[in-house]
């Protein structure tokens, strides 16, 4: 499905990103510029940077793609990822800005002065979370660019990795933030236009849902559709039009439902069913995990004042919510109008196309190659922005926590720190590229679930107690992080190994239901047994 216009738009996104990075590079004069953008980013820009930092290709293509394949069950995902931001706002944002300096470890060190063991633990957690989050993004980048633009997989991985490494090396978080603002606008506007085009084509949101009630989820319907039916009803992707696609989809749905009247509809749950414990564990992991993601938390250091961190988060919540709301309707609309195409792809074995291409095909259907190109550019922008944020978080933590504080014990000069930070950025980027190349074909999307699980049960739990509980102790902080980390990793390894249960305890889709309480309990019990509650007046200062 090669498109010259899509390729041009992707190249334009890449060139503007590099241009912004070069502009930022000229303004990096100190280590504070590299690690915290000089604490001078206006809140409105940080709102957009946080938006694209959070919205990866999994959000841009995967949310609407998932809904168009599985229906209502997958609406849960955007709601969970959106709701997590309420905790970021109320529990963390401005308080993190009040106490931290460059990394998550700084928050712990502000309360428990010179706690090097906590800094080391926080650095390890940051690197694990960022790496586990980043490698699936790189694999996704390779696969998606192969699908969207016919690029060979290794070329796509190296191109994405090289662009992000250059951006981070040039200006650290400063160049990353400013390029993310541009990337956010591209992906947000692309989704808005596709949403509006669907509203016009269908005749309003109610009409989209009415039609969605007339088709079953393609992921279920594929079992009952024969190759002959695919031949009869599947539209040609090169000449596809909205009217033809809708007519063929509704006709195929009618035939399928007449033979299998008990099939659920796209707006009903049951195609991607989770039981209540799995659903609750996922809900807990996402809502706490979001506030424990280091690549989100460190962005609060880039604004001048704590209230700017709050305003930036509020802006991000409106942007992210709007984006997910558009995506839900785009998902239902695409699942309806592209029903026969998605079922056809599933029956023919083109599962990655069925899951990832509905947004791009929607663009083609509604606005020809131009809108399809914008959708491809949006996906590319989403990949670049999230990989950029993750690379910055890992770079800052290794260069600042490990090198400048633990190895050099705070004696490194600014020039030395800048040099080391750029080397670290190159190494982190090389690891991400290598991971993307070596793990091609592996389904490592589960690593993102692990990243959320670890973030929820190490950083989120420990940060909540650090920022809100007076009796929390230094040993309690170590215990909550270590126990949360171990339990989360243990249950994820069991899941990856195919284990159904650990004794009487079932292994769930997300470890949070066990690891979060374990982390809290460890922190509370150890705090009651020990006495070092950290710097006097810490809580009074941040909540004043």
């Amino acid at each position, binding site marked *: 499905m090669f498109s010259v216009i899509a390729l041009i738009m992707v190249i334009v996104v890449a060139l503007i990103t590099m241009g912004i990075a070069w502009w930022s590079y000229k303004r990096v004069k100190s280590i504070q510029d590299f690690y915290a953008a000089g604490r001078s980013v206006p809140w409105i820009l940080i709102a957009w940077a946080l938006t694209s930092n959070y919205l990866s290709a999994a959000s841009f293509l995967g949310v609407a793609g998932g809904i168009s394949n599985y229906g*209502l*069950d997958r*609406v*849960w995902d955007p*709601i969970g990822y*959106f*709701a997590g*931001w*309420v*905790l970021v*706002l*109320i*529990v963390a944002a401005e308080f993190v800005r009040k106490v931290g300096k460059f990394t998550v470890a700084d928050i712990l060190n502000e309360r428990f002065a010179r706690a090097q063991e906590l800094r080391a633990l926080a650095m390890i957690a940051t690197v694990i979370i960022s790496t586990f989050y980043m490698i699936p993004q790189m694999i996704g980048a390779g696969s998606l660019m192969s699908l969207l633009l016919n690029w060979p997989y290794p070329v796509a991985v190296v191109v994405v990795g090289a662009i992000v490494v250059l951006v981070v090396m040039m200006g650290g978080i400063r160049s990353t933030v400013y390029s993310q603002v541009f990337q956010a606008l591209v992906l947000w506007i692309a989704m808005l236009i596709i949403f509006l085009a669907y509203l016009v084509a269908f005749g309003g949101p*109610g009409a*989209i*849902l*009415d*039609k*969605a*009630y007339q088709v079953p989820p393609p992921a279920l319907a594929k079992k009952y559709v024969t190759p002959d039916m695919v031949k009869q009803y599947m539209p040609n992707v090169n000449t596809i039009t909205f009217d033809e696609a809708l007519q063929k989809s509704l006709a195929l749905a009618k035939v399928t439902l007449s033979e299998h009247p008990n099939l*659920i*509809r796209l*707006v*009903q*749950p*049951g195609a991607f*069913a*989770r*039981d*209540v*414990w*799995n*659903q*609750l564990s*996922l*809900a807990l992991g996402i*809502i706490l995990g979001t506030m424990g993601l280091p690549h989100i938390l460190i962005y609060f250091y880039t604004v001048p004042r704590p*209230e700017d961190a*709050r305003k930036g988060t*509020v802006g991000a*919540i*409106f942007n992210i*919510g709007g984006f*997910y*709301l558009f995506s*839900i309707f785009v998902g239902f609309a695409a699942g309806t109008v592209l029903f026969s195409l998605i079922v056809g792809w599933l029956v023919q074995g083109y599962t990655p196309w069925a899951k990832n291409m509905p947004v791009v095909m929607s663009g083609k259907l509604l606005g020809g190659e131009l809108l399809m190109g914008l959708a491809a550019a949006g996906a590319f922008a989403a990949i670049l922005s999230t990989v950029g944020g993750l690379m910055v978080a890992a770079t800052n933590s290794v260069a600042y926590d490990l090198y400048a504080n633990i190895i050099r014990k705070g004696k490194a000069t600014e020039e030395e720190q800048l040099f080391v930070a750029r080397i670290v950025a190159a190494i982190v980027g090389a690891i991400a590229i290598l991971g993307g190349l070596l793990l091609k074909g592996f389904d490592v999307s589960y690593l993102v679930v692990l990243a959320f699980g670890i973030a929820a049960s190490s950083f989120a739990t420990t940060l909540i107690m650090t920022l*809100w509980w007076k009796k929390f102790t230094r040993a309690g902080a170590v215990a909550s992080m270590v126990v949360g980390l171990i339990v989360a990793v243990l249950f994820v390894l069991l899941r990856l190994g195919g284990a159904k249960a650990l004794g009487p305890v079932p292994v769930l889709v997300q470890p949070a239901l066990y690891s979060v309480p374990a982390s809290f309990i460890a922190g509370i019990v150890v705090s009651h047994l020990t006495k070092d509650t950290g710097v006097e007046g810490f809580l009074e200062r941040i*909540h004043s």
Partner: protein
Amino acid sequence: MNDRSVVLKLIVPYLIVYFGMAILFGAFKKVAGTPIAGGLTVGLAYALLMFPITWGTVILYTYLKSKE
């Protein structure tokens, strides 16, 4: 209003609504799939309501902080 009372007044009800949706989708699928009007089902209506509820919570929090 201090930070702790803000958290209690806003976060607790929000979490109840949030986990309520998780329970609806996990344990009461038939209820979630019941049509209300046209193509709108109970589960989808709940999901769509989460957007104004979330934005409303955020606006209320911002208002309470601005009064400090």
